[in-house]
Structure formats: C-alpha cells, structure tokens
C-alpha cells in the first residue's frame, strides 16, 4: 500500500461534516500553525516540501508563493482554482466532494501564510452540487469560529467565498479565472504582469489548484522535510490520479510519485489491468492536452528504463518519446481504440472551448476539428495529415494562453506515434464505413497502430 496523505480519512463515514472531520484530527494542524508558526515559516515549510503545482504545469508552489508581491496597504488574495475541466481529470471533484474541510483548512492556512484577508474558491459551473457542499462546509467553519474574525485567538481574520463559474474550460487558465471572478468575460490576460504582481482587482494574487492547497495541510502536519522524502527526485509527495478508460477499476487513486506506470495500470491496488484482458494500446497520462504515448513508450522510456509516475520520468525524452504528468488525468486505451476518433473528440473539445481572443487558436482549433471530421468520414487525403501537422505547429507557442498548446499537442502526438492509423483511414475509407470497424478496429482485419 502506498502512503496516503490527502485521502487517508476518505473511508470514514461522515468525514464531510465538521464534527467527524475534527474528531479525526481536522483543523488541529491549522490551530498549531496559527498559534505557533509565523506566516514566513509556513512558506518556508512549503518550499522545503518541494510541492509542485498539481493543476498541470507542475510549478514549485513555494517558489510561486515567494514571488507574491507584498506592497504596503494593498490587499493580497488567495484564489483556489477548482475549475477542473480537463477531459480525463476528476480528482478535485472527488476531493471536494468527500473531504471539503481539507480544502477549507488548506485555504485558511495558505491565506495566513500569504497574508490574505480574503480568499476565493472558483469552482466550475458544472460542479454546482459541490459548490453547495463547500458552502455547507464553510458555514460550519464560520459557526465554529474557524473562519471570520480572530481565528483560534491568533488575531488572524479571514473570509472565504465560493464563486461558481459559468462552465468554461478557459476559466481554468489563471488569468481568465481572475477576469471571470471579477465579473468579466473569461478571456485570458496578456502576461506580464503576472497575477503575483497584479491579479484579482489589480492586487497581488496567488492562484493554486485544489489539490495543491489541500496538500499544504499534510505538509504542515509532517513538516516539509518529511514530505519531501516521499516521492522521487523533484517529484515529492503524493498525487491524486484520475484513472479512466479501458481499465477494470477506474477511479481516483492517491499514489506516491515514483510509482511505476506498469504497476499503476496492472496492479489490483490501482487500475487492475485492462478490461477483458485486452492489450494496452496507448495512454494519455495527464489529461487530454498532454501527448498520447503508445504502450511501449508509456511502460518504458526510449532508453529502456521503466517509466515512473513522476514529473521527470513521464517527461523524459521530451515530446518525441515522452509526455507530461499534467493534472493526472490518466486515460487508458486498449487495442481496439481508434486514435483518430479519440483525437477528433479532443479536437472538438478544444474548438468548442477556445475563447476566440487570439487568432491562431480561434481559427486553428476549428480547422483541425473539421479536417479530422473529414478524415473520419472517409473523405481525407494524405495531404490532410501533413496539413494537420502544419496547423498544430503554427498554433503551438503563438497564442496568449496555453489553450493553444493544449489543442496542438494531442494532434502532434497522435500523428507522431500513430501516423499509420491516420493513413489507414485515408487510404481505406471503405473500412471506416464497415460497422464492425466502427466498434472494433481489429475486427475488420486492420492492424491498428
């Protein structure tokens, strides 16, 4: 059994209520921190822990916190990014639904460390019922004196609000999130200035993922140095992985970073192997925007080393043979999956979610979707595959926010690793129309991948 930090009390019935949460040691870490630690000491512990942002980019949290500008007389804000919309990722939902007080406690501790009098949880519109769960938790905390004035008699005042978004993927980008929180159209801002200098209402702001903020509590509980001992290399601590796709046991798993990918997919403790005993074809390791990897490259790196669930190991080989840990949306595809069809689904998503602010993403995402649709319909040509490649290269890196990359990377990776499958679609359109092919590529005699 791997070590569990965030979900260690997950099995206890009623852990979503304040009573049960406190009975199991909840808010004791916060009490200790507020009474005995200085804000800077908390930042220092987080730095020592080596915690990296769990939202996808993996930026060191302690470093991010130390960038926060602290001008006199200007309020600072902590904003929790609960706009979890990446296809394949549902870990924050699980955490907030089951243990909402862990996030509330983390928010208070983080805000104390950063000197924020007010903080916000920005939650996606589709998680409306979770917003209610959080609001209930916050109400309980206010009643118990854990929020509001003079928390634990430490003299620290804090107010926490939940803000429900209107359901746009782009509002998970931190500056678009801030715009939306301010009541504007959720368009990403042009950086610099970064939120650490001018964020919410023009004030210094830290935006962190739900899991990152929740992880602050175990870090304070065990100490940064102890936390850093878990995991491997610069990937410290535990990570929630949302496992989905053709596996026997889909769900949210807390793993120690550094777990071999093979063990994660096949062991009974985690995914429990591929459904129906079929072969593994490909894995999208960190949410729909990271590059897809074929079975041989996800289990072993190009150098023959076993691939581990960590920022470094998954990233090994760059995008040529590697991928990213991302937000931990682990999508497993078996041998019968059509990569082209899967890619079309992703492309359609990014087309739908592009905010339309900058031209490469606005125009390019729709174009890629239409070409993929054409290929899927059996009207594609070999030239279309090259065109797709060219379009993605002209979107990547040319956009205001990372949505451009998120749309371009899956296309690039699918063509890089599964070009033959695209060619199959183009050169044998009659097989696409075969109903058997629609469900199972191999059944019609086509060798996939």
């Amino acid at each position, binding site marked *: 059994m791997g070590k569990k930090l965030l979900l260690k009390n997950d099995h206890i019935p009623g852990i979503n209520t304040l009573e049960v949460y406190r009975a199991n040691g909840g808010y004791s870490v916060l009490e200790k921190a507020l009474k005995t630690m200085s804000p800077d000491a908390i930042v220092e512990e987080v730095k020592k822990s080596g915690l990296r942002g769990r939202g996808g980019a993996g930026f060191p949290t302690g470093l991010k916190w130390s960038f926060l500008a602290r001008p006199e007389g200007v309020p600072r804000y902590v904003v929790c990014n609960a706009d979890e919309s990446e296809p394949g990722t549902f870990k924050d939902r699980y955490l907030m639904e089951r243990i909402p007080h862990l996030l509330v406690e983390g928010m208070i501790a983080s805000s104390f460390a950063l000197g924020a009098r007010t903080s916000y949880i920005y939650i996606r519109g589709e998680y409306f019922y979770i917003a209610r769960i959080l609001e209930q938790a916050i109400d309980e905390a206010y009643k118990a004196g854990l929020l509001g004035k003079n928390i634990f008699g430490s003299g620290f005042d804090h107010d926490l609000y939940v803000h429900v978004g209107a359901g*746009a993927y*782009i509002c998970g980008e931190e500056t678009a999130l801030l715009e939306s929180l301010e009541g504007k*159209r959720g368009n990403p801002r*042009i950086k610099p200035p970064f939120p650490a200098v001018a964020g919410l209402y023009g004030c210094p702001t830290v935006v962190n993922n739900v899991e990152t903020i929740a992880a602050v509590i175990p870090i304070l509980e065990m100490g940064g140095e102890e936390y850093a001992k878990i995991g491997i290399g610069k990937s410290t601590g535990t990570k929630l992985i949302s496992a989905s796709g053709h596996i026997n046991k889909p769900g949210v798993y807390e793993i120690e970073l550094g777990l071999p990918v093979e063990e994660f997919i096949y062991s009974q403790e985690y995914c429990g192997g591929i459904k129906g005993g079929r072969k593994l074809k490909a894995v999208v390791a960190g949410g729909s925007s990271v590059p897809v990897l074929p079975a041989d490259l996800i289990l072993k790196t190009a150098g023959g080393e076993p691939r581990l669930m960590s920022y470094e190991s998954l990233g090994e080989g760059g995008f040529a043979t590697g991928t990213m840990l991302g937000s931990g949306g682990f999508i497993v595809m078996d041998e019968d999956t059509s990569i082209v069809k899967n890619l079309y689904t992703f492309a359609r998503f990014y*087309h*739908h*979610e*592009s*905010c*339309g*602010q*900058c*031209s*490469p993403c*606005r*125009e*390019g*995402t*729709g*174009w890629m979707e*239409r070409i993929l649709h054409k290929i899927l319909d059996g009207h594609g040509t070999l030239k279309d595959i090259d*065109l797709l490649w060219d379009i993605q*290269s*002209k979107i990547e*890196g*040319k*956009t*205001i926010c990372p949505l451009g990359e998120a749309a371009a990377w899956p296309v690039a990776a699918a063509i890089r690793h599964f070009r033959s499958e695209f060619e199959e679609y183009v050169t044998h359109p009659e097989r696409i129309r075969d109903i058997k092919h629609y469900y199972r590529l191999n059944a019609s005699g086509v060798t996939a991948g």
Partner: protein
Amino acid sequence: MPKVTIDDIPIEVPEGTTILQAARMIGGDIVPPAMCYYSKLKTSGGYCRTCIVKVEQGSEKDPRPMPKPVASCRTTVMDGMVVRNITSVENLEARAGVVEFLLLNHPLDCPVCDQAGECDLQDLGYGHGAQETRNDFPRREFEPIDIGDKIKLHMNRCILCYRCVKVADQLTDGRCHGVLNRGEASEISTYIEKAIDNDFSGNVIDVCPVGALTDKTFRFKSRVWYTNPIDAHRDCPTCCGKVRLWNQGEEVLRVTARKDQWGEVQDNEDGSPAWICNTCRFEKKHINDWVIEGPSKISRHSVISANHYENALRNIKADTLKMMGAKPHGVKVELGTGALDPNNNK
C-alpha cells in the same frame, strides 16, 4: 535607457517602451505589422499575433532566449535584449501562419469592400500571405447588421482585434457593443441590434483594420483610390475638428480622422489623439463646411497614393532606370522583380 537590438540594428529607448514601438523608432522594413495594436488605445494589442518576434536574448542580466515568439506590441524591452523579426526565417514562417489563420474565414470580398485600398489585412496578405488557401471548408458567415444609422457591421470581415471595443470603452461614455459568444463563433455585436449612439462612436470605423465597420454615408459611393484626400479643419465645439476629406471634385464623399504612417489617428499639438466627433464625420459633407489646408500625403497605402498616379509612374521609371544601370536603351526589363512595390514601403 535600455538598449535593444532589433534585426541587428541597435537603438536606445526610454524605459517601458515595447519592442514594436522601438522598431517603429528605427522604422523601415523591420517594423512588425500590427493588426490589433493601436498606440492611442490603452490595453490594445496582443490578440492578433501578427507582430510576433523572436527574442534571442532576454536581457543583459538574463541572456536566455525567450522560449516562444512574443507579441512585440505587448512586450517591453529590457536592456541588452536581442530581437529578430525579418532576419529570422522561423519568425517569418510563424507570421505567415498567423496571416493564414486571419484569412482562413475572411470572405476576400475586397472587390465589393469599402475598405479595399486602405485595408491593413489586404496589405498583410500581400506581404505575408500564401497564393491560395489550404482551407476547403465553407467559411464562417454572419449577416451584415446596422449598428445605428451611420455604421454598418460586416462581421464576416472582422478579425476580432478588439480595437472598436476599446474605443467604446475609452472614448465614449458607455459601451453598448462588445464581443458575444466565444471561439470561432465570437462576434462583435450589440444586444438586439441596439444602435451605437454616442458623439465619438464613429471612431470605431477609423480604428477598424479591415472592412468590418464601415461608414454608411460613404458605402459604395466610390473606391478610395478614386477620391482625393485633403486635410481640412473646422471650428468644432465637440472635437478638435481636424479631419481628412475624401473628395471627388468638389463633392465630399467621406470624412475621416487624419492618420499617421502606422495607420493610427494623428496626435494634436498637445499630444492627445485627434479623434473626431460624429457631427464632423457624418453631417458636414459640404465643402463649404471646411477650411481646406491642402492635399494629404499618404505613403502607407499603395492604391491611395497611386491616386497620385504621376508619383507611381515616376517611381517605376526611376526604378527601371536604376535596374538598367548605365545602359539607357535596348535592355529588356522584367517587371515584378523589384520595380513594383505593392505595399509602397520604399
């Protein structure tokens, strides 16, 4: 003062200058094209991505190159920065990609568009565009709408530069139009075709880089290159009253603000932009309303300056002679190898 090198040309600029402004101080071919940036409008720029440049060296202190191309209109220079624009093939390719995206859904209806001849997208297409489109899907279509009785919106032609939104935010006392919907379906619009009614709303026409917002009092009256641009002024209680008349003979077909070499509204003596009011723009269409100052000099748009046909012919003749070198007779000259300069940059 920070020192920046753009395409191997060093220049010292004041603190806080953007790469694009620094390039404009140098001038010439190295200036990145800008479709959405408008120096007179705060927070404009960064959207269209045509002005992207490659930063080879971030600064003296931190010489690392920037990992991605940056929007030169929104990136401030640092001391020791090294920027590549037209000397980087990679950058030009990236820009060509952006131009392709901008033209992807553009109707290319230049023959019936009032903006043709003074259109930034047309210039950009000539300079960086491909010969033909690689898009074989139907283009995005919107119905043209009237926003007020003086302004027509052709959303098909719009490149979503947000300039008109910024004008409404910063010049008028209440914005009632903006961007609706998102992604590819984004459109500039008002709710329920509400009229834009404000003293300075007509400036959205001047800032529009394409033919999306056009002047209904001028629509289909003439091609711009058949009109004579003349600088004129009047004593206006609302605005500075300094305008450019576009005449055919004695008839005033159109009134616009005066624009500088970057296609932006010129400054007044006090440094404020010389925006004009709707009365000057739409109502004063008689030559007697104005005090004439003289013909305007326009070097930016080839076809308008070609209005002064003599100039264009003189240029071609001079270029031809230069190419023929010392031999004045009997040398065959191929046109299109430098003599013609469609964007009239030289």
